[in-house]
């Protein structure tokens, strides 16, 4: 607070106020958009303990099945009767993997899920990754899952 003697009066710091403004706005935008990303697709995935981490990557295909059994392909609603054709267009071609993510509502009758899985298997999908949420405060008993736990740059 006292008067500086050796040139302390020259202010060399950049003006950071606009930067904070931008940061805060970005933070708020993020916080608002995250829940909205899944809007329009109502499915609460089941919870489990021994799950395998599957970090999101480019080219992942997600089939959503909401609580009414309606299908969504990569969050866009599709007609259930079109699903087979659309999935076939993606998987009946040369691809690096034949894995499809399936995010289904937990209280759905298994019949609806098995119908979807059956449809996928007939249209080129080999592995269905059933998206499940980690039960809070649990950790997978499988050692390799823990090694794969979120880490930047991992595959």
């Amino acid at each position, binding site marked *: *607070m006292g*008067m*500086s*003697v*050796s*040139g302390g*009066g*020259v202010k060399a710091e950049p003006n*950071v*106020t606009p*930067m*904070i403004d931008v*940061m*805060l706005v*970005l*933070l708020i935008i*993020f*916080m608002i958009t*995250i829940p909205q990303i899944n809007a329009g697709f109502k499915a609460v995935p*089941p919870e*489990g*303990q*021994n*799950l*395998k*981490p*599957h*970090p*999101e990557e480019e080219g992942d295909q997600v089939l959503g099945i909401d609580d009414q059994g309606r299908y969504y392909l990569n969050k866009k609603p599709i007609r259930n009767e079109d699903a087979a054709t659309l999935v076939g267009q993606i998987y009946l071609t040369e691809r690096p993997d034949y894995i499809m*993510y399936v995010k*289904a509502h*937990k*209280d759905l*009758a*298994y*019949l609806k*899920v*098995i119908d979807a*899985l*059956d449809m*996928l*298997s*007939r249209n080129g*999908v*080999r*592995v*269905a*990754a*059933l*998206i*499940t*949420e*980690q039960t809070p405060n649990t950790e*997978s*008993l*499988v050692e390799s899952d823990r090694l794969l736990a*979120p*880490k*930047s740059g*991992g595959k």
Partner: protein
Amino acid sequence: MSMSAPTGGSNLNNDMNVTPMIDVLLVLLIIFMMIIPMSRKALDAQLPDPTPQPASQVNTDQIVLEVLPDDKYAVNKEPVEKKEVLARLKAIFDPRPEKIIFVKGDTTVAYGNVIWAMDQARGAGVKVIGIPPK
């Protein structure tokens, strides 16, 4: 360089030091951006082969975990209490080299129950979960 004595107190620095705050905000932002895509988890299920070979070699020693209505379970047709499923699967899979299980859910059970069964299977050391053909 020496400043002359200020006349109107303009040299008093009243600005807050915001640098630590920016640091924290930046870190928060980065953490948010990293965690969102990284936190997805799933159970991998092998789907049945759409063009099954004629049953040339009938595999008799495969393990099938059935999820039956009313929260009942069965391992190779033998009923197992829900709370004993994990112990039972462990007993089966600990000495077994092939860590493969088929999880067959009744069509009326909730999807969550089937996931629970797959979850227990992985907990018992199963590496590959198969879905039997419809």
